[in-house]
């Protein structure tokens, strides 16, 4: 009944994945690291690895890719319940787009509008995406440009564009890439400081910035999502779905007359979508799909992506300082990595270590939010340039 290598129908790979799932649940609950994602992902891993393959199939795979089909195939037993959620929610790309709508409803772009050069730092902080894209492809670790781009976008440090792009270009890597992306976002307080200290002097980190940020009028806040959407999609049309959803959610928030919709979008709506995303992503990782050389490569390259993105934002801020009379603290450039609000908090903490008078959080929130727009643009650029 069981091979010598199996225990209750589970292979060593399945058992390894159960440990990984358990570790993610521990990190989410006990360490409070991205719990709203790591807990569902961890449990999704349990669902597809704890059940002996011939018993109830929650997620059916064909050649490492989730089986396609709808209600009819589900009733015929050709696919599982999680296949249905995956096909209609994730593979159709609806769920990541609607999550981004909710994100837009929660974001305050005020600090970015008050200091528009924040968008330059957000753009520069995408450096890691393109560097890792090149490394991933030119080393031959990933066979296609689409796979390399999906690994690279981890450097943008933003969940919905990562899921959206990977679903289009490399769905077979969605599980590993999403898991690594969200895990590393939670590790930004560990990953960024060494890069910051390597590329800046204490004197630069101690540059004082006055606490006040310019007050932004209501009209500016309302015009911003409309104009940014219009401008961005004229330049990068493939970014329209992502930026459109982000800006629509933001418009609901700032209009002042759709507060109920904004609260719904940023509340229970995004929560439901998040656990659907989490459990489906976890269910994409049976042992035979996860334990491949490419997964190790993704884990390693993600560190490079985060480091290079941090470096890009920092160096952009230092470059801009060459032309400014009133210098900015380069730490706010590092916050262009769109891990909101961790990257801004790292800037705040490192700034205060160098100069206890400094309060950089509000200054760093501008580039932090700008990074969300920048990563969406990058996803649109890849979708426009890579055939799929």
């Amino acid at each position, binding site marked *: 009944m069981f091979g010598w290598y199996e225990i209750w129908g589970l292979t060593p790979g399945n058992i390894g994945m159960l440990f990984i799932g358990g570790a993610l649940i521990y990190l989410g609950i006990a360490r409070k690291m991205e719990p709203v994602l790591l807990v569902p992902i961890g449990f999704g891993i349990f669902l597809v690895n704890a059940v002996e393959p011939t018993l109830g199939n929650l997620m059916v795979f064909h050649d490492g890719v989730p089986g396609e089909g709808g209600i009819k195939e589900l009733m015929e037993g050709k696919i599982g319940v999680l296949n249905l959620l995956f096909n209609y929610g994730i593979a159709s790309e609806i769920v990541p787009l609607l999550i981004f709508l909710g994100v837009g409803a929660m974001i305050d772009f005020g600090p970015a509008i008050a200091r528009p050069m924040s968008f330059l730092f957000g753009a520069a902080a995408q450096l890691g995406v393109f*560097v890792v894209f090149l490394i991933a*492809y030119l080393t031959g670790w990933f066979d296609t440009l689409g796979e390399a781009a999906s690994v690279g976008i981890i450097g943008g440090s933003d969940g919905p564009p990562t899921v959206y792009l990977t679903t289009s270009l490399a769905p077979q890597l969605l599980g590993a890439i999403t898991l690594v992306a969200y895990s590393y976002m939670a590790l930004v307080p560990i990953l960024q400081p060494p890069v910051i200290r390597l590329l800046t002097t204490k004197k630069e980190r101690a540059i004082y910035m006055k606490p006040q940020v310019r007050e932004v009028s209501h009209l500016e806040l309302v015009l911003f999502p409309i104009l940014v959407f219009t401008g961005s999609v004229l330049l990068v049309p493939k970014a329209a779905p992502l930026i459109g959803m982000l800006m629509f959610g933001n418009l609901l928030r700032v209009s002042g007359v759709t507060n109920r919709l904004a609260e719904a979008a940023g509340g229970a709506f995004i929560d439901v979508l998040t656990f659907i995303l989490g459990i489906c992503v976890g269910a994409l990782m049976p042992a035979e799909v996860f334990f491949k050389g490419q997964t190790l490569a993704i884990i390693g390259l993600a560190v490079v992506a985060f480091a290079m993105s941090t470096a890009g934002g920092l160096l952009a801020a230092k470059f801009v300082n060459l032309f400014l009379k009133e210098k900015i603290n380069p730490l706010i450039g590092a916050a262009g990595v769109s891990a909101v609000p961790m990257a801004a908090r790292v800037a705040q903490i490192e700034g205060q270590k160098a100069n206890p008078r400094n309060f950089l959080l509000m200054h760093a929130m501008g580039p932090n939010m700008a990074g969300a727009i920048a990563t969406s643009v990058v996803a649109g650029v890849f979708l426009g340039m890579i055939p799929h």
Partner: protein
Amino acid sequence: MPSDWDEALKIAGQGFGATIVALVAVCAITWLVGWILQKRAAWKARGGDKEEGDAHQAR
């Protein structure tokens, strides 16, 4: 090893460039709108003071 190095380098270079251009455009639009609205607010404030001055003179 991949054969289309040129394609990958083109995507990386043009892609990063396009990202920078798009965000520079967003930066410029945001700055311009903010500048126009601040000027308009300052003009309205000055225009309001002038109207009060004219009304006082007329009395």
